C-alpha cells in the first residue's frame, strides 16, 4: 500500500483546509450554526463574486451579532437576483429602498433601534460599486461624517453590471464596458484620477475601514467580525469579480480575485480612525498581464496589437499600490 501525501494546502491557494484547523479557528461557513442569510435558490450568475462575498459577509455578521442583524440593500444585482417577488433569498430582516440612499436608510434603521433601546440589533448596508461610489456617495459620506452605527459593505465589481455592464467611477482604466467600448484611438475606459473609496472612507477618519477579496474569504469573515466589534461608521470594500461583465470564466472568479491581489492591482488593507493598521502582503508578485489576460474586458490590450503603453500604465498603478501600502516586505522582496 502506497502512502498518500498529506496536503495541508489546497493546490495553489495557500489556504489551509478547515478540517485541519482547531474548531475555534474554522470559518463561519464551515460552522453548523451558519445562518445561510443569503439562501440558495437566488438567481445570481454562475461564478458571481458578489453572491459569494455577500453570503460570507452577512453570515459572518450574523455570527458576530448573535443573529441580531438588519440589512439595507441598494438597488443592483444583489437586490435583483435575491428578491424577485414572491421569493426572497434573505433569511434576515432586509429592506431595499432605492439605488442611492442605502447608507441613509441604514442610518434611519440604526436611529430607530437606538430610540427603541434595541442596540443589540446591528445594521449592515450593502451595495455594488455604482450604488456606493457614484449614486449613493452623498448618503454614504453623510453616514460616515455623522459616525452612524452602520457597517457599509461595498461589493465592487467595477461597473454597473445589473443594467448591462456600464462604466462606473470604480471601473479601471482601459476596461471595456458597454459605455466605454474597446474602439477608437484609446479603447476602453479612460484613465481618470480614480475614486478610491476605501481611502475616501479613511479620510472621514471613521473607526474602521477594510478591503477584502473573495479569494480570501476567511480574511473577509475576520474583517466583518472585527467590524461588528466596533460601534460607529464602518466600511468594508470587497473586490468581487463578475464573470459576465469582465468576460471571465465562471470557474475563475477566485483565481481572478487572487491575481488582483498578487499583482498589487487591489490592495487588501485594514485601517482604524484613518490610520492604516494592517496590510495583506503579496506572497509572490506577479505582473499585471497575468491578471489582465484572462479577462475579455482587457482583450484589446493584447490583440490585434499589444498595447504596451496601457499595460505599463496599469503596472505603474499596481507598483504604486505596492509602494504606498507596503504590500511587499522590503527586506526579502517578498510578502509573508
Amino acid at each position: 500500500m502506497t502512502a498518500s501525501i498529506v496536503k495541508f494546502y489546497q493546490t495553489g491557494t495557500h489556504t489551509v483546509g478547515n478540517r485541519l484547523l482547531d474548531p475555534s479557528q474554522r470559518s463561519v461557513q464551515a460552522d453548523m450554526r451558519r445562518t445561510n442569510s443569503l439562501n440558495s435558490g437566488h438567481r445570481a450568475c454562475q461564478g458571481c463574486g458578489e453572491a459569494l462575498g455577500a453570503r460570507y459577509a452577512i453570515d459572518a455578521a450574523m455570527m458576530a451579532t448573535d443573529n441580531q442583524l438588519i440589512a439595507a440593500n441598494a438597488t443592483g444585482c444583489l437586490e435583483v437576483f435575491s428578491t424577485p417577488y414572491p421569493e426572497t433569498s434573505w433569511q434576515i430582516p432586509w429592506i431595499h429602498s432605492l439605488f442611492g440612499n442605502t447608507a441613509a436608510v441604514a442610518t434611519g434603521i440604526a436611529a430607530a433601534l437606538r430610540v427603541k433601546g434595541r442596540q443589540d440589533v446591528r445594521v449592515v448596508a450593502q451595495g455594488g460599486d455604482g450604488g456606493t461610489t457614484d449614486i449613493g456617495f452623498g448618503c454614504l459620506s453623510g453616514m460616515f461624517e455623522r459616525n452612524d452605527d452602520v457597517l457599509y459593505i461595498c461589493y465592487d465589481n467595477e461597473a454597473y453590471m445589473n443594467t448591462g455592464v456600464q462604466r462606473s467611477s470604480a471601473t479601471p482604466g482601459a476596461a471595456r464596458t458597454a459605455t466605454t467600448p474597446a474602439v477608437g484611438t484609446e479603447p476602453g475606459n479612460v484613465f481618470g484620477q480614480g475614486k478610491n473609496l476605501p481611502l475616501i472612507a479613511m479620510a472621514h477618519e471613521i473607526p474602521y475601514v477594510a478591503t477584502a477579496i473573495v479569494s480570501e474569504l476567511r480574511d473577509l469573515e475576520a474583517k466583518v467580525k472585527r467590524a461588528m466589534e466596533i460601534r460607529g461608521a464602518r466600511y468594508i470594500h470587497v473586490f468581487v469579480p463578475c464573470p459576465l461583465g469582465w468576460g471571465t470564466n465562471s470557474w475563475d472568479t477566485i483565481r481572478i480575485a487572487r491575481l488582483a491581489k498578487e499583482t498589487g492591482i487591489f490592495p487588501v488593507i485594514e485601517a482604524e480612525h484613518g490610520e492604516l493598521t494592517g496590510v495583506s502582503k503579496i506572497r509572490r508578485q506577479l505582473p499585471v498581464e497575468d491578471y489582465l489576460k484572462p479577462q475579455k474586458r482587457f482583450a484589446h490590450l493584447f490583440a490585434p496589437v499589444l498595447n504596451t503603453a496601457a499595460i505599463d500604465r496599469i503596472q505603474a498603478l499596481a507598483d504604486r499600490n505596492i509602494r504606498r501600502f507596503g504590500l511587499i516586505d522590503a527586506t526579502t522582496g517578498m510578502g509573508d
Partner: protein
Amino acid sequence: MLKQCEGSHAVAATVALCRPEVICAYPISPQTHIVEGLSEMVRDGTLQGCEFINVESEFAAMSVAIGASATGARSYTATASQGLLFMAEAVWNASGLGLPIVMTLANRAIGAPINIWNDHTDAMSMRDAGWLQLFAENNQEAADLHIQAFRLAEEISLPIMVCMDGFILTHAYEQVDIPTQEQVDAYLPPYEPRQVLDPREPVSIGAMVGPEAFTEVRYLAHARQMQALDLIPQLATEFRQQFGRDSGGLIRTYCTDDAVTIVVALGSVLGTIKDTVDDLREAGHKIGVLGITSFRPFPTNAIRHATRNAHRVVVVEKCFAVGVGGIVSRDVRTAMRDRPQRLYGVVAGLGGRAITKSSLHGLLLKAMDDELEQLTFLDLDWNAVNRELERERQTRRSGPIAENLLRDLGVVAAGAV
C-alpha cells in the same frame, strides 16, 4: 393652551406632542423654523425618546425616515420646494413601501427662476406620488392637521404631507391653541406598524415585483387612499370631541347652501376669499366658498355634492401645469362631470404674488357675469409679457428671460442697450 406664536413654532410644538421617535432635517426655507424648534426640544429634553438627525440632503432626510419607519419608529421630517424635488425618488418610495411618515411641506415656488415665496407648485409636483396631502387654512389647522396626520397615516400605512403656505403661515404670528400631552395621547395611540424590520420575525421589504403583481400592489395603495376618504371625516369628528374645535375633514364650505357661484381654493388664501365673498354677499351676490383640505385623496363625491346647485365654479389655484392650465381645476372638473356648470380656472399667487381682495373682487364680478376666460392669470402684467415677446421677435440672442423682465420692470439697473 392659547399661545401667540409663529406658525412654525406651533407646528414644532404640536409635532413634539405627537411623540415622534426619529426626526431628520435638512434646511430649506421656509420650513427651517419647524425643525429648528424640534431640534431645540430634543436637545433640552422637552422631547424625549426621539433621535434628531441632521442629514446631508433632503434625499437623505426622506431615506432616513424610510429606514426608521420601516424599523417601527414614528418618523417625521419637513421640507419645501426644491427640497421636495430633491427627495422625489424617496417620496415615491415611502408611499410605495406603505410607510406612514408625516412630513410638513411649507409650500414654496419651484425654480427657475429661483424664488423662495409661497405657491403650491411643490405640492402639486408630488400630487400623484401616493402620499396623502392635507392643506391647512391657518396656523391652528396646520398644527391640528399634524395630530390627525400621524393617526391617519399609521391607520392606513401611507405617508402624509401636511401642506402649509410658506411664510404666509410658517412665519405668521397668530394665536394657536397648543393642546396638552394628555389630549394628544388620548387621540393618538403609539405606532403599531403593519411591517417591521425585526430579527425576531425576519421579512424582506422592498422586494422586486414584476408584472404579475405590480398592478395589485398599486391598486391596494389606491384602495387605502379611498378608505381614507371615509376615515378623514371620522378622524375630524373625533378630533372635535377631543379638542373642541373643527380642524381637518375633506372639504370646508362657507355660504354655499344658496350659492350660485362657488369659489374653490386650497390653503391660506381661503381667508382672503371668504372676506371678499362677505363683501359680495353684502352687495347681494349669491356666492360661497369651498376649501379643499384633503387634496389627496381627492374628495370627488364631497365636492360634487357641495357644488350640485351652483351655476358656476371658480377655482383659484396657486399652481399650474405649463402647457395645459390649472391642476386643481382639472380635478374639480372631474367632480362636476355630466353637469351643465361653468368652470373657470384662475392661476394666482405664483411665487408669492399677493392675492388681494380688490383683485379677487374684480375677478369674481367678471366670473359672475360669465365674462372670464377658461383660464385666467390673475394680475398678470401683460405689458411686461408683451414687451419680452417683442424683444424675442426682434433679436435672436434676447438673453435670460428672468433678467430681462426684472430690467424691464426696473427692479435691476438697466445694462448696456
